[in-house]
């Protein structure tokens, strides 16, 4: 992966982005058990293959994006604005 297609700025060098980690849901603090909290804090799927993760275009538009990436090849499979439905890297975003 040399470039990451930012949904707002287009393909930009990956050094402009900050990695935000695998997308995981935050548990409800009122009902969570210690084991669930530990899993939320520390345990990640860490797959060898496609993974969905959050990135920040730190040195660009400073907005968040959700990237689907193959961790064995670093190929970007899909990218979308955080909170929107996925689009292919070449697809036009609505």
């Amino acid at each position, binding site marked *: 992966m*040399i470039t990451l297609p930012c949904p707002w700025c287009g393909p930009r*060098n*990956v*050094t402009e982005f*900050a*990695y935000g980690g695998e997308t995981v849901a935050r548990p409800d603090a009122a009902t969570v058990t*210690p*084991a669930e909290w*530990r*899993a939320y*804090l*520390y*345990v*990640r799927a*860490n*797959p*060898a293959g496609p993974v969905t*993760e959050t990135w920040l275009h730190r040195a660009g538009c400073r907005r968040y994006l959700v990237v689907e990436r193959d*961790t*064995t*090849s*670093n190929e970007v499979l899909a990218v979308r604005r955080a909170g929107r439905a996925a689009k292919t890297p070449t697809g036009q975003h609505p």
Partner: protein
Amino acid sequence: MKNETPRYSAFSLARRGLSGKPWPPAWRAHELRPSYDVVIIGGGVHGLATAHYLAANHDITNVAVLDKGYIGGGGSGRNTAILRSNYLTPEGIAFYDRSLTLYRHLAADLNFNVMFSQRGHMTLAHNDSSLRTMRWRAEVNKLCGVDSDVIDPNEIAKLVPRMDVSSEARYPILGALWHPPGGIIRHDAVVWGYARGADRRGVHIHQNTEVVGVDAIDDRVTGVRTSRGPVSASVVVNCTAGWSSLVSDMAGVEMPVQTFPLQAAVTEPVQPFLDPVVVSGTLHVYVSQTDRGELVFGASVDPFPSYSTGGSLEFIEGLAGHVLQLMPSLHRLRLLRQWAGLCDMTPDYSPIMGLTPVDGFYVDVGWGTYGFKAGPVSGEQMAACIATGRTPELIAPFSLSRFADGHLVGEKGAAAVGH
């Protein structure tokens, strides 16, 4: 069957040389048995050292070491071969100091020249806060009996004449943590030495044998499935690096681990000029000169997780810039090659060792960027753990349960870049 490996010595070298008789292989290929007492997944320095000490210290020899590629082809062959014990926490210091002691006697113990060169390890401080951490580390080190001290720029210039210690530098050097027992070693020789030691005691080393599944019934391990067929075993040990969470997943054990590539590079060989290992946490770089004269450069892990071992131009650009800030006179040196190894990073930069919730499934993982220097002590302690079924005191702080209990062993300050 014991291997009739001749003892390596000047005498045996002369005799073989004059007679022209070929050397027998240092380790042999075997048929995969349907059953072993202990199956070790991963034929790197950790896996082979565990097998060696199981046989040498505990007389457990019905052991198989499985590797999906060739032995020493993962992290053991991709690290920068730096050894030291000047960590930050008493737990970390005690552990790595034992490793350094084993490394010091390894050539004699294994009858294999591992070329350990104790040339000293220097960690530079470029600002007040890192100088403060150096003093903290030096004092904790001294209390734990480890030779470690803070030195000033004049002493640094004497040890490394090419270093830019002037106040004109972009990041002026204020001092350094100086650790004389640190040094570098021939990493392949360590792997080969342990493989030979394990093989001659009856351990089977199976290369090109990939584990595709770990079988467990009622949370009790029964064996593994491999690319060459199933193997039953009551003890399975995960000694892999980058793939450690995937292998643990096979046994149903969740690992707080993420896999990051760590890149390194080497230059063309030049005349010897750099004696100690030089590390700069601020500049994210470490430099050492090998016995062949090449400069070995390393840095911190890549900024995002990946299983790809491809090198990147960003890494080389950053690395070259940082090295030249330390030693401007290297500007005409050419890089020969760069490579990457896969590191299983834990949240607290300490390993995960010992028992797991699945009976008979042991782990020696989470070694991040600092696994090579811990190879011998990990093998020794894991072998003791497996032989007795109890967690030895030295590795008790590194249990998997610490993440649930909240007893993390924070080594980030001493382990992140400071190889």
